[in-house]
Structure formats: C-alpha cells, structure tokens
C-alpha cells in the first residue's frame, strides 16, 4: 500500500509529455552528474564492475590455487595484500573475481523482474477489469510473504544453484515492481494523449508500447534501482546459507560462509567479503536516492 501511494505521489510521474521527453531526460542527466554523492557511487561501482570483468588481465594470483602452508595470512602480508583464505588462496584475487558471480546473481533478478513486472503492471493498469483483478490478486499472494522468507522458501525447494537463486529472487521482485507499474499506469491511462491515440484508432498494444511505456518507465526504473541493494544482500545471503553457488567458486556470500570458521584465527580477513557486499549495496542505494531527487524536477 505504501509503495503504490509513493509511486502515485512521485513527482517523476508528472513527467513532461512526450514532445519534451528529450529535454526532461537531459535535465535529469545534468542534475545527476552535478550530484557529488551519486558520482562517487558511480565511480566505485564502475571500479568494482570493471575490475571484475577485466580480472583475467589484471595479473592477479589464481583465485582457485590454494596452498596448505600459507593459509589465513593476515592483511598486509607481502604478495598477499589482503591476506589469504582458509585454503591459502589469495583474498584480493578472490574478492575481485567474486564480483563476477555476486553482481550477476545480485543484479540480474532486478533486471528480469523489471521487464516482467513492467509488462504485467502495464497490462493490468491499461486493460483494467478482470485482467487487472486476476493479475493484481495473484501478485497480492506473493506480496503476503516476507521477501527473505519467499526467496529462501523457493530456492530451498528448488535446491542450491545460481539459476535457482536468480529465479527465486526474480519471483520475489516481480510483485513489487508490478504494483508500482500498475499504479503508475493507472495514473497515466486517462490522460488526454492516450485518449487521443485511442480516438485515432490505435490498438491497445500500440497505445501501450508507443504512448504509455515511455511515460511509465521512469518511475518504475527508479524504484527498480532501489531494489538492487536488497537483491545484492539477499543473493549473497542465499549463497551464505549454501543455497547459491558451490565451492570453490569465488562469490562474496559463499566466501563469507566458508571463512566463518576462521574468525577465531584471522577475523578481519573473514569479514572482507561482507565489506564488498556492503559497498555495492550502499552505492546502489545512494545512487537510487540521487536519481529519485534528480527526477523530481519541481524542486
């Protein structure tokens, strides 16, 4: 309830009409670039993302190659700037390589849910009637679960694995995005330009694709960026429980789990993977806040 009313009140919804669309997004772009906090977050996220993507070219140690004689070295050990893990593998390399899977299973559910939820919400909001009732009442059922419980229930039933984690998190986020999309669409569907398109004989599909999509996408996008932080935490949480990827794959949540036994030997090395999750999550949250206020053109 609070989510949908937020979306309705969101000033971004009162976006300029289609003819000014480029002007509006250019303004938003200028405002976000001028926001220092957002730009710092973008820089940190790009650094983590690029180093994860380019990891093989960074001359790092082999993230899979362990050694029984150099296990759990401390942070600052020569050649092992961030120490080594419980199997003697280089932590720096594993943290950088770990970004690949962690970002993949953290971000892709939001992207998938953004697509699916926007589609469902657009159809429910525009068509209305029994279609709306059918979609929204089904959504309500999934909404009636706490998100952590739903994610764990589904991936616990499906079994461990990367695909299963992504599927279960997508199921968690689709209802949330559908609700926002539906409420934004309902706000737009009776505006004059939609009426005009209908009067000129455009089909429902054309109206949704050409006339409504551009007008509802903004607020839904902002809402979805806010979900990435939750998704990162939950995705790593699933791996932490042993429901995500399997050893020896480097992944932040799983690394946190396997290093948990080492907290009495080398506590701060054990805490490192969580710091990565925290950094990504807080940057996405701050960026989402910055985007929201940049799109609030009235202020």
């Amino acid at each position, binding site marked *: 309830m609070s989510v949908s009313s937020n979306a309705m009140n969101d000033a971004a919804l009162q976006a300029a009409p289609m003819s000014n669309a480029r002007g509006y997004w250019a303004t938003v772009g200028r405002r976000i670039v001028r926001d220092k906090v957002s730009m710092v977050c973008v820089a940190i996220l790009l650094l983590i993302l690029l180093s994860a993507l380019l990891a093989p070219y960074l001359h790092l140690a082999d993230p899979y190659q362990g050694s029984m004689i150099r296990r759990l070295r401390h942070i600052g050990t020569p050649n092992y700037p961030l120490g080594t893990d419980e199997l003697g593998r280089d932590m720096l390399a594993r943290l950088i390589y770990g970004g690949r899977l962690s970002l993949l299973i953290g971000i892709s559910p939001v992207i998938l849910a953004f697509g699916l939820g926007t589609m469902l919400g657009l159809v429910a909001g525009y068509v209305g009637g029994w279609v709306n009732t059918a979609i929204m009442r089904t959504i309500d059922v999934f909404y009636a679960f706490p998100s952590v419980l739903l994610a764990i229930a589904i991936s*616990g039933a499906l079994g461990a694995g990367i695909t299963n984690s992504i599927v279960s998190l997508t199921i968690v986020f689709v209802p949330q995005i559908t609700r926002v999309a539906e409420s934004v669409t309902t706000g737009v569907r009776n505006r004059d330009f939609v009426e005009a398109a209908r009067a000129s004989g455009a089909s429902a599909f054309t109206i949704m694709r050409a006339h409504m999509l551009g007008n509802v996408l903004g607020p839904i996008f902002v809402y979805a960026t806010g979900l990435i932080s939750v998704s990162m935490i939950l995705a790593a949480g699933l791996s932490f429980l042993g429901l995500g990827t399997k050893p020896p794959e480097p992944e932040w949540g799983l690394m946190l789990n396997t290093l948990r036994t080492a907290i009495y030997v080398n506590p701060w090395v054990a805490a490192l993977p969580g710091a990565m999750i925290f950094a990504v999550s807080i940057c996405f949250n701050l960026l989402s806040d910055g985007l929201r206020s940049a799109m609030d053109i009235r202020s």
Partner: protein
Amino acid sequence: MLSYAARRMVYAIPIIIGVALVCFMLVHITPGDPLVAVLPADASQELAQQLRVAYGFDKPLPVQFGLWLWRAVNGDLGSSIATGRPVLAEVLRAVSNTVTLAIAAAIIGFSLGLFFGLIAGYFRDSWIDKVATSIAIAGVSLPHYWLGMVLVIIFSVELNWLPAVGAGPSGSGAWSWDWAHLRFLILPAITTSVIPMGIITRTVRALTGDILSQDFVEALRAKGLRETQVFRHVLKNAAPTALAVMGLQLGYMLGGSILIETVFSWPGSGLLLNSAIFQRDLPLLQGTILVLAMFFVILNLVVDIAQAAIDPRIKRGS
C-alpha cells in the same frame, strides 16, 4: 469501523488460501518425486506404494491440496522426517524463540528509528539530519548477516565480552529473562534491529517533513502554541503511518530471521528452516514456511485494522 474490519477480514481469505497454495506447491516444485524424501533408502515397492497412498500422493493435485489444507486448518501439518515429531509443535516451539529475538530487536530498532527520524525531519538539512540519514542508509544497506559476524568478531573474539552463538548457558533449554540468558540475546538483537531502524528513520523523517510543511502547523504556531505542543500535533499525525510501518517490520523480523539465526545459532524458526532445507525435511520446510507466512498475513491484517481504528481518514477514504 466494525464493517471495515469485517471487510478486511473477508478480503484476507483468498490471500490466505493463495499463501497456503504457494506453500503446498513448494513440495511439488522440488526436483524428483516428493515421496523420495519420506522413503528410507532401502524401501520396497510395496512400502513405497503404501506410503504414496498414506500421504495421498496418488490423488490428483487439487484433491491433494484440499486434503492438505483441511488437515492444516485442523492443526495437522504432518510429521518431521528427521525427528518424527509433529511439525506444528516443532515450529511453535522454535517460533517462541524468534518472537523473543524480534521483540528485543523491535525495542532497539523502533526507538532508535523514531528518534533519528523525528530529529532528522525536524531539523531538515542541518548536520543532525545528515548524520541521521547517513545512519539510516547504512542500516538499510548493511548485509545484516555480515554485521552479525563483525559484531561477533569485536565483542566475542577480540573483547570476549559476549557469547558468540546459542541462546543460553546450558546450550539449549528454555529461555528466561535473566542476565545469563540476556547476554546471548544482545548481539543477535542488535543485528536484527539495524534494517528496521533504517527503514523507520527514513519513513518518519519523510512523514515529519511532510507534516511540518502543512498549513495547519503554521496555524498552530500562529495562535501561539509552544513548540513542544506543536510537536505533539506532529506526533499524532505521524502515528498511524509510523505504526503501520512498524507492524510490517515486526513481521519481516519474524519471517526473515533465517540468516541472523544461522549466524548466531539462535534456536528459532529460522534455524529450524535452515535445517529443514539441508536435511531435505520437506514437511518441516513446508510447515515452517506456512506458519511464518500466516503470522505475516495476520499481522498485516491487524496492522490495517488498527491503523483504521486510530486514523479516521482511512475509513472515510475507502
């Protein structure tokens, strides 16, 4: 009021059935025959068939769902495969520990959240606001299971002040509200409180800001009320929404405790769920999720009705 409450309850029935259906389907989306989970490894064909009939797996799915729902309504959620004990009894015993944890976390998280939210909203754009909103955003961005580990590292490993795992000195046993047990509660409760603290700070800050910018506040000040009296009016206006958010957060803490309970080996419903998942104890998995989800649905219902009871605008609105 009563008619509103009645309407809300009627509206909750399809949701409850839907939630039950999702829980029922969990066993059927698991890879393989659900019967494998209840069969001993060396079971004969006849035994398999007997159990299939006993569990009703030979009937069509809708019939199975009806039977399962009927038994669940009568308090029969089946028996745990691992222990053989009734699922409902296992779940309820574990839930009481989770409730203890959630209440302790709520006391910490709600009071801090209200405090930070009110001062941030009142002194908007000042340094106080900046500090409070930074704490709030850190709170909602923290992987709480990691925070739990860090707290264990600081207070158990390095300082050796508080126990790292468990819920009591004897390893298990009943909970009681004395220092010997409370020592075990402190770290998990702080860890659990961080997310609700952040969310309530953000909500209350926005609420307070909105209310303060309304005309009636101007009028209150114009007629000469002292700032403390104005503050009371702000509180009254913020209360319904703030209470609703707190109710929801309590539900999230009850239902989403698995990660924190795993970190601290806290013997609640989350830890039970964890063992059910990894022992492939499907009846226990299904039953725990059903009970927790039902708690959440009922809590939502209570929050909605309570919100309508204290906020006359809602009744008129609907």
